[in-house]
């Protein structure tokens, strides 16, 4: 499991509007890469372009290359459904399926694709994924209860369990803790640290301490002004970005002088 991603000169458009311009970066396998930057600078847009989720919005398109272990995700004939099976995603707001139980939520990725699965196999996958998301002990007695009945932090870990149940190569996280309290945030940060043993993780965060705590490498995005495209300013080891960044704008941002 876990593959690397190489992005080459990626432009992302919404209709005629250029949202993100000229991003190139390498995302290492089995590591945590954090995207930081002010609101509206295109971090989330770029993240969603990595598993072709941005296409859900009408009019969105990209130019450039995104290579998953050498395979271009945007090559002709690539099915976005297959891309998303390899590159999972966790969203800002916990979004368990309200019609499903805890167990069914975890197995949703398999069941919705109507793969055949025996009861014991399902139990095994559910337990492994819930353990992987540090949620097993809290929900093992109520696997058949509705997933929407859990607390916010538990729901978010349920969503992580759901994402890793299909065993993706890469896990994208779009501000996974911004709707959570500090205790739940800590639980998820610990989880990210464990998950990077097996998965390539990319996380967007507004919380710079969080980026400093969990990530190995950090990318700083910025925007010149309203209506201008977002750009990748700098990408380096996290310690370097937060101690002596190469660009003045990065230093201003991480030291809290603007943003």
């Amino acid at each position: 499991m876990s593959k690397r991603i190489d992005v080459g000169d990626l432009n992302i458009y919404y209709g005629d509007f250029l949202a993100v311009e000229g991003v190139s970066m390498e995302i290492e396998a089995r590591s945590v890469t954090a995207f930081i930057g002010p609101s509206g600078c295109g971090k989330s847009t770029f993240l969603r372009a990595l598993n072709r989720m941005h296409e859900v919005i009408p009019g969105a398109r990209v130019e450039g290359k995104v290579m998953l272990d050498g395979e271009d995700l945007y090559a002709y004939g690539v099915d976005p459904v297959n891309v998303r099976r390899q590159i999972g995603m966790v969203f800002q707001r916990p979004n368990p399926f309200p019609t499903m139980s805890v167990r069914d939520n975890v197995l949703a990725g398999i069941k919705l694709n109507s793969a055949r699965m025996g009861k014991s196999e399902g139990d095994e996958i559910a337990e492994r994924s819930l353990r992987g998301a540090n949620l097993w002990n809290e929900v093992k007695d109520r696997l058949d209860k509705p997933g929407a009945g859990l607390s916010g932090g538990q729901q978010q870990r349920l969503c992580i369990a759901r994402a890793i149940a299909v065993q993706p190569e890469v896990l994208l996280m779009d501000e996974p803790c911004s709707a959570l309290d500090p205790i739940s945030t800590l639980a998820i940060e610990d989880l990210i640290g464990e998950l990077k043993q097996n998965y390539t993780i990319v996380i967007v965060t507004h919380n710079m301490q969080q980026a400093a705590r969990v990530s190995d490498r950090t990318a700083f995005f910025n925007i010149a002004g309203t209506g201008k495209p977002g750009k990748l300013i700098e990408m380096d080891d996290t310690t370097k970005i937060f101690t002596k960044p190469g660009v003045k704008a990065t230093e201003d941002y991480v030291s809290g002088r603007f943003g």
Partner: protein
Amino acid sequence: MTVTTSTPHESSTLTHDQLHRYVPVGLFVAAGALGAALSAVIGFSLPMFVVLTVVIFAIVLPIVSGVVEGRRKAIDRFVTVLVYMAFVIALVPLVSVIWSVIGNGLSAFSADFLTTSMRNVTGLEDQQTAQEGAPLIGGAYHALMGTLLITALAAAISVPIGLMTSIYLVEYGRGRLARAITFFVDVMTGIPSIVAGLFAAALFAVLFGVGTRNGFAGAVALSVLMIPVVVRSSEEMLRIVPNELREAAYALGVPKWRMILRVVIPTAISGIASGVTLAIARVVGETAPLIVTAGFTSSINTNPFSDWMMSLPAYVYSLAMRPLSGSEPQPSLDRAWAAALTLVIIVMLLNLIARLIAKAFAPKTGR
């Protein structure tokens, strides 16, 4: 009458003179007495009494309140009275309809009425019932069966078409085609029901020969009325499914059609099902389109694809307009009222079912 006020603490800026909570009640009783007296002077009648009472109350209460409590409270009380009045006025027709349908319908309503048809019942029997007190014979079984079959068929036609249209509009529709569909669905909701009936009658005249009337033609006419209602209600329900759920399904690598089938529809199913039930309740009492498509009969016909078929509204219409016996119309009118009662009961049951469905399918959030 004394106006009691709770004594405020003079020093506080937060308290204020208030009417004691029994004062409005007392004023209402006084207004009632005054209204009764005034209407007695003019010539007593119940509507006059009620109107005078309410008008006096609506004038006096704000004045008293204005003197004691101030302008804002006075306006508040005045508008409160207006709102309650509007509510009661809105209830009047509903209650009076139910009252008259039950009052007139119960005399002929019985198990016998629901299980017999009008076959071989003639004006002679009605004359005997009216003049010699013979038991009322003949019922609405054939019309009940007709209504149930025609409505079920109409639902079987409209629900798939309506549901799929709304799925197209919400999940796929972009640009001109979607806008055109929305526009025409809106137009269709406004189609007079007789026009829908004539459309179905004309369609069947072209396809199967002039004068073709059967239950299926009636079902087609009702679907024309039902489809837009189903489209609009399920469209609303699908739209309120949060986009986050769609994204969550996409992010798991679920294809779009399966996402719609397994995530969007189950999440919205309670609203869709109750919307469909209400749409059925809406068309079950349609009269005009059935008269021109399904026709009338006094016999039981359970095959909607051939021969004329009776329905409850048509039954009511024919018995009320053309009683079996011209000299003794009362037994026929009794049957018409009983059939109307049956119809009202069906509509109430459907509304009840809609509520139960909505409750049963609603996503659960218990712990």
